[in-house]
């Protein structure tokens, strides 16, 4: 795959699959047994990822993953992408009742592509703690702590 095709593939993962919730895209761009890894969860296979996309769209109206061509970094069959997620929580999500709140978090994902040119693995770090904090779903127990989260490392 040339550079432009790989950039398009990575951006389709966000634009078509995650933002437009066009789950048929998953069949084109993901290997059947692809692995999607977050620090706190992992999803194996296209179908698991489709379900995750649909569930998150049910919970967040206008769920959008903002990417730029400049934010995609390629090195052979591997790629990295930085992104920003926005949306408004309109339904229960992970046990958190609908808040109606707008949320916005940054994230970054490392991709590994298979020989077929489809995505084999995606490893994500997102500002999940910030998302929970924006939804009012997490509070620090420590009374002297004025900063709820550490700096980036």
């Amino acid at each position: 795959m040339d550079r432009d095709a790989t950039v398009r593939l990575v951006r389709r993962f966000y634009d078509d699959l995650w933002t437009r919730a066009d789950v048929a895209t998953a069949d084109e761009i993901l290997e059947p047994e692809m692995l999607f890894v977050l620090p706190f969860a992992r999803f194996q296979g296209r179908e698991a990822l489709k379900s995750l996309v649909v569930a998150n769209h049910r919970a967040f109206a206008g769920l959008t993953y903002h990417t730029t061509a400049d934010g995609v970094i390629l090195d052979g069959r591997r790629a990295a992408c930085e992104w920003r997620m926005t949306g408004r929580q309109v339904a229960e999500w992970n046990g958190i009742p609908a808040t109606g709140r707008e949320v916005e978090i940054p994230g970054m994902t490392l991709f590994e592509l298979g020989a077929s040119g489809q995505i084999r693995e995606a490893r994500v770090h997102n500002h999940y703690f910030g998302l929970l904090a924006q939804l009012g779903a997490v509070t620090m127990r420590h009374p002297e702590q004025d900063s709820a989260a550490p700096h980036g490392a």
Partner: protein
Amino acid sequence: MANSPDANNAIAVRLFETVWNKGDFGVLDTLIAPDALDHSTAGGVPKTERGSASFRNIVGMFRHAMPDIHLSIEDEIYAGDRVVHRWVLEGTDTGGVMGMPPSGKRLRFTGTTIVRMEDGKIAERWANLDELGLLQQLGVVPPPPGA
């Protein structure tokens, strides 16, 4: 003159190995541009700071908290002026993380860092780490709902 991607990666790796793992802050200014931008998610809110001070403060805080700190690189991708590292950080919390009392616990959390290089120095950094996992290990936040 722009460095090769390999040379750029070597500089980013040096920040981890020298400053993070050995506490040699003397090399910071040789690795980081004076007007570097640092994008972090401090306080639950993404923010941007200019200069090497935030690098110094963040590493200094973690090294004080965990004197035996060790950051290991798990994966790296680099091309053009960008370098990406996925890493795992481990250490024993004997000094207290983020101003909290020392927990005495062995902590382990992961993150991803992207840097933009300019003239052989880090000109911009974006980092995203498993803050929730860290705070849960410290026992200061409960597991998320539904977990």
